């Protein structure tokens, strides 16, 4: 998982790749069905994450988007997590350990705060799942703003 270290950075090649070309970055268009929004962190504390989970009628995470302010690790963790959550039940997404992901990537303990922020944003989004959210119908097409 952690791959080789990039000679030009202190991070693994995986972290570097996801920092430089993050997957699923951006946000869904306003009004898109089935979208749960979660936030964590604050700019003045060095990192802020806004994570969106798009949930199907049967409680599956169909897609993810996020916006992130933070260090390269925070950005890379958002990207990797967004890939990992797709197709997962919402309950699994809510329990997903970004800290474990960080450990697998070989990130130092001082970077685990970044993982906790991403985790908190996802749990914040998952926690907003209730009857008020209109779920995404199984075959619904959606659009998003990259």
């Amino acid at each position, binding site marked *: 998982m952690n791959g080789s270290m990039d000679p030009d950075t202190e991070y693994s090649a995986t972290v570097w790749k996801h920092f430089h070309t993050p997957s699923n970055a951006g946000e869904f268009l306003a009004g898109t069905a089935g979208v749960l929004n979660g936030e964590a962190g604050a*700019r*003045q504390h060095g990192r802020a994450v806004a994570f969106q989970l798009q949930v199907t009628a049967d409680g599956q995470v169909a897609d993810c988007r996020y*916006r992130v302010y933070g260090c390269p690790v925070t950005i890379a963790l958002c990207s990797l997590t967004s890939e990992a959550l797709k197709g997962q039940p919402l309950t699994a997404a809510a329990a997903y350990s970004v800290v474990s992901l960080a450990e697998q990537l070989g990130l130092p303990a001082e970077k685990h705060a970044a993982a906790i922020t991403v985790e908190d944003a996802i749990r914040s989004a998952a926690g907003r799942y209730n009857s008020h959210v209109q779920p995404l119908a199984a075959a619904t097409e959606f659009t998003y703003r990259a």
Partner: protein
Amino acid sequence: MNQKTIYLDYAATTPVDPRVAEKMSGCLTCEGMFANPASAHGPGRAARGAVEQARNQVAALVGAEPGEIIFTSGATESDNLAIKGVAHFYKHKGRHLVTSRIEHKAVLDTCKQLERDGFEVTWLKPDADGLIQPPMVEQVLRPDTVLVSIMHVNNEIGTINDIAAIGRITRKHGVFFHVDAAQSAGKLPIDLKTLFVDLMSFSGHKLYGPKGIGALYVRRQPRVQLDPLIHGGGHEHGLRSGTLATHQIVGMGEAFSLARQELTKEAPHLRALREKLWQALHTAVPQAMLNGHPTERVCGILNVAFPGIEGESLLFACGALAVSSGSACTSADRQPSFVLRALGRDDQLAGSSIRFSVGRFTTSAEVEAAARIVSEEYRRLLDLAPVG
């Protein structure tokens, strides 16, 4: 990642000029001037001649007498020798020193050590442009003040202090004046015959010379006396014992000689490159903010704050560039620059500031490419960030 790194960190260190390296290589092997310059035999006298020629070259760049130049291991040691040397030698006259909050760590930490040793230090806060105004110095002088230490050019933001005016004040009050000139020697004209500066620190590696060599100017008229830091064979008038490193000294001498020859054409060239970089960055990123005084700045340094993004990400995104976020000596701990914080920048802006420093081997094409890379990566990171 695969493209060649664009080096824009000349304020951290410079490559050795090939002409300097050639001179240095002549002091190392059997065929060269390898002998101990303190030896009385022929090879020793030859090495001593080379050292004294280098002393002349260093002195000539800054309008000093050769006998006023003491070779050290670098500007950090020069700062230590000047500040601790004066403080300890003149402690019977007073135990108060004055410096600023945005000096190089070599000065800051030396003064902090003196505080622990029982001296008192007044830490001047710069104005919003990063300058220490001469009246600020005069206001804090006391009867027991023995030394003022103010840098000529700030290593992070490049602002130039008016050391001529500060020197007039210190001389009037009978206080010694030390200047760290690591960033200004060879970039700005310095004439110690006309300045009321008593001690001045120089570095070899900031001016296309080798690392591990520096010098301290110690005025003879009026005389400044110092307690040495290093005791041994009594080298350098007893102020800095240790066998002289002929190759390093010759390298520094040649580097200073080249700087003297090229100062008048190199400084405008660097200023043009710096302005080109700033204009390109500011055009592409109108939010970018200049750190430091808009005009009172050395030719090669540009420090820019990029609002709205996180600093480490910008630095890593611009991996094709060798630049600094603050002083290279402090960037390892990734704390927001104490210099930018002292200027009133908040943690976020201080953390997202980049110091670009151009030098002798920087090309116009490199500056254009750097501006393009930074602006593209800035926009990418800004687009990634949440609103607000």
